[in-house]
């Protein structure tokens, strides 16, 4: 039973104590997701609704019905596949009990494949049931700000900014540099022509860019020997990347509806203080000032945005408003997610994604880029920084991880809801 010929008794006992099985078992997240009955019930309900809607559509076309049918189509499809897999599994189990030996052998062969199919279809079903992120279809703003510390972080911030720019170029995403504030001091130059960056904002104008990049938000850590370092010591510094939802330039009223007070993007203009740089003296024809900087302060939250990139105050103001809206929408969304998380069981508390978490490390010495959440190590760091396929691999891995988290959150929500339904008296007392 044991690989070793002889093991001392106390050692065997201690092995039992530390929970051998817990440590080396694969966790549930990578196995087939066990779907709770509540979720299955919902899927069944939605599928029934889908069938009913398609029947209605066959008789007379209505835009509203068609839209709703399109929404639930994915879920209905996934649920049907899941049902199919389950049915075939039951059939196989029936065959396994049959008297015919040859039949049993055939069923045994098929069993593994069918089990796998069931696992996959159940995962697909839970992905389909996961609500889409409300900002998923939007373009996004990627904000790169060096972390506290010396110029090394600023140099690397430039690298990160260029990495995303190149990645978008490789993927064919349209981008626009909204803000790029650099201080090209004379004495110091980073490696690879990096300039010391103060703050940069890149707008990715492709629809769905937010969903693509939202996993990139967080602290990016770099470990390398800076170009300015004389004695060859490795430094660690950090760069913050924020991903904010943005509006398409030609947004239609429906998806760019920031005048609607219900929208996350709505800001009451009375709550925003707008400041301009004012030249001293008489103004008007007496002076010709070039200061076009605009600073907006959202008074209730204290969020401040200042924009001075363009010579045109008009452009600066428009950009500042856009950035302010995006930041506030993101903040509102985060607050809502925080509240939802507090309601949930503590299972997921470790999986929170906030701005403060270190999410990725770029190690130059080992030519390695590690994503701490997806647990992925890739080599060929130059290709990552060029925004090549290696970076794509990392981003895809993060995507997988995020989807997994969303499913877990959904399951936890369903469980919490079921628990609340079972014990309503207790819930009331708690409040």
């Amino acid at each position: 039973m044991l690989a070793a010929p002889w093991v001392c008794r106390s050692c065997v006992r201690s092995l039992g104590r530390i929970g051998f099985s817990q440590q080396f078992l694969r966790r549930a997240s990578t196995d087939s997701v066990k779907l709770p009955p509540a979720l299955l019930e919902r899927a069944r309900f939605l599928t029934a609704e889908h069938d009913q809607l398609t029947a209605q559509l066959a008789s007379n076309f209505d835009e509203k019905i068609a839209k709703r049918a399109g929404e639930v189509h994915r879920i209905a499809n996934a649920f049907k596949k899941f049902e199919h897999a389950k049915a075939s599994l039951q059939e196989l189990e029936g065959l396994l009990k049959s008297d015919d030996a040859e039949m049993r052998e055939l069923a045994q062969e098929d069993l593994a494949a069918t089990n796998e199919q069931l696992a996959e279809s159940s995962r697909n079903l839970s992905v389909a049931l996961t609500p889409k992120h409300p900002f998923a279809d939007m373009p996004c703003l990627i904000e790169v700000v060096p972390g506290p510390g010396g110029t090394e972080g600023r140099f690397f911030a430039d690298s990160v900014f260029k990495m995303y720019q190149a990645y978008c170029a490789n993927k064919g995403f349209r981008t626009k540099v909204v803000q790029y504030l650099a201080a090209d001091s004379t004495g110091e130059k980073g490696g690879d022509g990096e300039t010391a960056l103060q703050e940069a904002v890149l707008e990715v104008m492709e629809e769905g860019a937010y969903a693509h990049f939202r996993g990139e938000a967080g602290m990016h850590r770099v470990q390398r020997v800076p170009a300015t370092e004389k004695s060859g010591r490795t430094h660690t510094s950090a760069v913050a990347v924020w991903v904010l939802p943005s509006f398409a330039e030609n947004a239609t009223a429906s998806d760019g509806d920031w005048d609607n007070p219900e929208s996350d993007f709505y800001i009451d203009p009375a709550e925003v203080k707008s400041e301009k740089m004012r030249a001293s003296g008489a103004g008007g024809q007496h002076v010709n000032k070039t200061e076009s900087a605009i600073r907006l302060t959202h008074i209730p939250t204290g969020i401040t945005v200042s924009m001075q990139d363009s010579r045109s105050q008009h452009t600066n103001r428009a950009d500042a408003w856009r950035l302010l809206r995006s930041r506030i929408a993101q903040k509102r969304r985060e607050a809502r997610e925080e509240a939802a998380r507090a309601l949930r069981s503590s299972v997921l508390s470790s999986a929170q994604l906030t701005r403060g978490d270190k999410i990725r490390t770029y190690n130059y010495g080992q030519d390695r880029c590690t994503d701490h959440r997806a647990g992925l190590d890739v080599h060929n760091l130059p290709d990552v920084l060029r925004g090549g396929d290696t970076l794509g691999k990392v981003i895809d891995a993060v995507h997988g991880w995020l989807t997994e988290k969303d499913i877990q959150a959904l399951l936890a929500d369903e469980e919490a809801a079921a628990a609340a339904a079972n014990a309503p008296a207790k819930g009331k007392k708690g409040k």
Partner: protein
Amino acid sequence: MPRLPPSLFWKARQQISPFAPILLPVCRTLDSAANELRWIKQHVNSTSSLVPRKLRIWQACLKRERGMPLQYILGTQPFGPLEILCRPGVLIPRLETESIIYHLSSLIPRPSPQAPPLKILDLCTGTGCIPLLLSSLLFPARTQITGVDISPSAISLSRQNLTHTISLRHLSPSASKSINFTQADIFDLKFLPSLGYKPSELDILVSNPPYISHHGFNTTTERSVRLYEPRLALVPQIHPTSHYNCEPEDIFYAHLLEIVRTLQPKRVLFEVGDLDQAARVVAMVVRGKGFLERYARNVEVWRDEPGVGLEGKAEKMWVGGNVEVEVKGQGRGRGVYFWRE
């Protein structure tokens, strides 16, 4: 002006660029020097020349150091959504003008497509920035705008600006028909008949005339304005035939009010230098004889940003001891606006 500490120059060199200390005496702050240097670099990068890039940046910085306005070095100035060409000899469009024109356009009800186009007259147009901005804000097809200036170079530049903004697609091509620029001296007796407006046919009269006094020109203007911008556009010249009994810097307003009396426009907006000048202009309107009486009860003074209201607190100003006038917005006194019932 207070002396800048040497440490600031050192910081500019260390933190921004070796070119930054050159700009510092004109720009006064690190932020502003960094911005101007960035715009100079962007301009140099976007235009091609045989001269090496760094040399061109350096030359531009030296010009700026001597006080030349950045707008003349770069050749353009943004004005609302438009890009206006600038050239020595023509006044550079100001941000304050932009904000009062924005406010004016927000007051004008959207004309229905069937209605005849709004007739707008801009006197002392300079680069033509006001007609172009009004056209872009009120739609070219619904306006018929005339810009007038005495300087031939201003008129040629304003015509160039019209084609320039159209070629950049900031304005629709139909604007080339709805905007025209004429060279004329508004003090000339033949000027008004040459425009061919019937009485009360004009919808809006706008003007940003020269309004700085001789003393003010020597004391309150910025060095770059004094040395590089045309005096013709800043300080009113005493016209030999003028007979107005007012301060020398208000001569244009006195004459503009004569024009108002004749053309009887529905709305009038003048840019002014400060609140005192605004008060003097308001007094001229209120005490005016003849047709001006119809405007006397609808006069407002606008500050730099007339749209930004101090909520709930309506600011009032007393003119001539007995007339109460509303002052709108924040900043310094910038405009006098009146309309007839």
